[in-house]
């Protein structure tokens, strides 16, 4: 048995598909879809990145253009930060469309992101967000099924398999030939992704390892489908049984399993609605006292401590503005409470994701989807990373302003400003201070971290493929047995 017979077999299968117009129709439709989504996604990612950069620049400029003010006014004026998308979001936007693109940062509050794209697009896209990853994960298997369902059962029904075997072709070779023909189709479907990935690496926008993992994961996933299609096609009694069984498999593994897994995760680890938690946060914050009011009883101990530290008897004798110190202290206490609730929520969300990932053993789609998202940096971990970075930035700029409140203002002016217009004027500090605030910057996790996070799922996918290959070896005999 030479390599020539294998090539012949592959070429024969391709010819057969062309004659049937099956592969032709399916592949024409699919390439159209893939190229369209790749271009649309590429264009959208570029526009979205430009849009966010522009808005960030606008927000920075607006912040710096504020006039001379009381520093606490700037705490309430706040700041907007925008998330720049990960470079690989072009291939796999992951959860990006479902998280907000900006966060409004202000004193005393830990806001959530506003305006997810998903909310603005109504029901047109509810099947999923169209991206190259979605097409390869969901639709390419569908096309492979249509093309490949009849590949072995067809040879058997038509009796051509017997002729081939009589001519000395081993069943293994037949499988290999059919698999090679199908797999070539699968690789063709992956081509737009490979091109975009290569472009990202060549332009230096992304390291090669995560790109290789995203592409390799999808390749393995498609290989798995090719093997499953061959197994079913070898076992099935007729073409229509093979097609029905495979499409049912597709509906269960690709459509149903992820949704059931999500419901299971939601049931296993309940995350209370944000509206509920916000009330609980408000209640917890109320016990801390009002940091706008230096006379609040909750700060009595703090006052004693500060007085002792500076060795004076009254707050009026302090070299710093006690109201600013209280604002700083209150912000720190408030942030501690809010962070406690926020990390509780993040922990619950990550637990939900963990339950979800466990279902990767049930559906290879979940394995490849999370492998790809983790490698691309568009998963929950990276989302939390952004939210935490924004919170750290918020806390830093608010505390810088509170420091100015304590050091650049006198207590007498600060106390009189609600009644005395001249004192109010003196509590306004120079606008130059706003420009001295550091700018926000955020980048996805380093490549090494992302690769490490996606490896376990790559392992699951690999085991899936191994199991399927073992099954294929088992059913080899079915073909001869006819």
């Amino acid at each position, binding site marked *: 048995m030479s390599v020539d017979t294998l090539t012949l077999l592959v070429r024969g299968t391709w010819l057969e598909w062309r004659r*049937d*117009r*099956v592969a032709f*129709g*399916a592949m024409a*439709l699919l390439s159209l*879809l893939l190229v369209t989504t790749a271009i649309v996604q590429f264009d959208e990612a570029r526009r979205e990145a430009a849009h966010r950069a522009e808005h960030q620049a606008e*927000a920075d400029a*607006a912040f710096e253009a504020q006039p001379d003010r009381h520093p606490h*006014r700037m705490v*309430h*004026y706040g700041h*907007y930060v925008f998330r720049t998308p990960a470079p690989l979001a072009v291939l796999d936007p992951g*959860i990006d469309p*479902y*998280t*907000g693109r900006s966060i*409004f940062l202000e004193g005393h509050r830990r806001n*959530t*992101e*506003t*305006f*997810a794209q*998903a909310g*603005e697009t*109504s*029901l*047109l*896209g*509810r*099947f999923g967000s*169209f991206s190259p990853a979605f097409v390869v994960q969901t639709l390419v298997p*569908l096309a492979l099924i*249509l093309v490949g369902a009849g590949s072995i059962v067809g040879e058997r029904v038509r009796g051509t398999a017997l002729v081939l075997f009589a001519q000395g072709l081993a069943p293994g070779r037949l499988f290999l030939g059919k698999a090679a023909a199908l797999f070539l189709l699968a690789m063709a479907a992956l081509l737009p992704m490979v091109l975009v990935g290569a472009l990202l690496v060549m332009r230096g926008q992304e390291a090669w390892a995560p790109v290789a993992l995203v592409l390799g994961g999808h390749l393995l996933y498609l290989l798995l489908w090719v093997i499953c299609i061959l197994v079913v096609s070898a076992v099935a009694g007729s*073409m*229509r*049984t093979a*097609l*029905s*069984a495979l499409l049912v498999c597709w*509906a269960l593994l690709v*459509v*149903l399993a992820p949704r*059931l*897994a*999500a419901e299971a995760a*939601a049931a296993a680890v309940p*995350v209370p609605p*944000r509206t*509920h938690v*916000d*009330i609980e946060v*408000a*209640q917890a914050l109320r016990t801390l006292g009002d940091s706008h009011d230096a006379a609040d009883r909750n700060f009595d101990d703090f006052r004693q401590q500060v007085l002792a530290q500076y060795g004076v008897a009254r707050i009026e004798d302090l070299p710093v503005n006690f109201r600013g110190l209280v604002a700083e202290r209150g912000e720190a206490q408030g942030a501690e409470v809010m962070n406690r609730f926020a990390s509780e929520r993040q922990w619950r969300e990550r637990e*939900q994701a963990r339950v*979800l990932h466990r279902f990767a053993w049930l559906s290879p789609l979940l394995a490849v989807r999370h492998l790809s998202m983790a490698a691309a940096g568009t*998963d*929950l971990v990276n989302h939390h990373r952004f939210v935490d970075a924004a919170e750290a930035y918020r806390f830093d700029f608010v505390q810088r302003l509170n420091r100015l409140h304590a050091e650049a203002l006198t207590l007498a002016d600060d106390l009189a400003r*609600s*009644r005395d217009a001249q004192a109010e004027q003196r509590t306004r500090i120079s606008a130059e201070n706003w420009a001295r605030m550091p700018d926000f910057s955020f980048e996805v996790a380093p490549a090494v971290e992302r690769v490490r996070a996606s490896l376990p799922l790559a392992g699951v996918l690999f085991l899936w493929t191994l199991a399927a290959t073992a099954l294929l070896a088992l059913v080899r005999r079915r073909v001869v047995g006819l």
Partner: protein
Amino acid sequence: MSTLVPLSATVRDHSPAGLWAALVREASFLARDRAALLVLGTLCLLATTSVSLGLIELARQDAAIERFRSLDAADRRAALEGVNDWGDAAYAAFHATWQSPSPLSFAALGQRDVSPYMLRVRMLALEGQIHEADTGNPELALTGRFDLAFVVAFLAPIALVLLLHDVVSHERESGRMTLLVATAGDARRLWASRFLVRIAAVTAVILLPFGCAAMAASVPPGAALLAAGAILASIAAWSLLLVPLAFRPWASTVIATAGVGLWVLLALLVPLAGRALVDASVPRVEGSDIALLQREAVNDAWDLPKSVTMERFFESHPQWARTRPIDAPFDWRWYYAFQQVGDEAAAALSQRYRASIAARDRWAGVLAWFSPSVAVQRALQHLANTDVAATLRYDARIRAYHASLRRFWYPLLFEEQLFDRGQLDRLPEFATGVD
């Protein structure tokens, strides 16, 4: 083929009873078709799962609103405990608003998983509050909800492709065609009964779980019937496309591919292309721009002379124009006046934002003519009060409620009435009525 023996005996009969007999015979064929049973069983499982999950979600939303309201009431009591002037009270009191799910929403969860159905508002500028999102875990949102509307829109058509594609070509490929048509006498009735039985089976495995769930959720019979009608119309539309396809003189696999291709085109590509078109023709107003504009207006007030803000406020509220002038650097009347002015500054943009959402929704309605999947989802969401229009109605109710809060507080603030805790019991409550 052994099945041909009874065929020749019954199909020639042209009476209604003959049609019934033909249907019964086709049903018994179907019952022995293992591939078809696999497809129907799977579809039934998917439909049952979707309505069960829908009922669970319905109960979850009801419970969440219940708890939200009790948390809110307790929190407001606690917040108002220490206050002793109107300004502080108005600042401290948050008020719950919500949109209860309709019984039918188990079948079409619609916009409720992406746009909030619970929101607390207070006397500050509304545009800074109303755009807040109550998002769940995005990793779960990524998968999308699995409701009956999804099953009907996306999965039922695939089941129909599988069940209908080879009704004709299978007979031809197994060489029985000539014999079958010759013995059947009335070929039209043969094919009609064969197709009808299969379409009816698909309808049954969807409508049965739907009917049970509708009864469990005590959906009003009228709404349930309309929803069933929408489901039926969707199945009929797909059947009208797929039956002629099944008569094409092509191989079964070619017909199946064409059927799935049609599905990809109508269920996925048309909505995708439509979204791109809508994006291009109806410019999206960024919600963040409204919040930004409102924030600038509110913050600028601190640096403007008080009289500028108050004059603007009195333009829309002339009844308070003759009240005592503001002279202190801080006065609650001025504080709430600039919140009102902030809302007014953002009003035009906010109006455009809602108009653009409504316009995009209208375009989606036009698109529905080209995609049965879009059409049936829209119909079910409309009946279940979970469509875009429903979120806009909720938005309008929040605005009306916020206006009623202002009507409550303004007289107390501007007439500078003496603080009287008893008045707080008269705070307007959010109307529970269905919109």
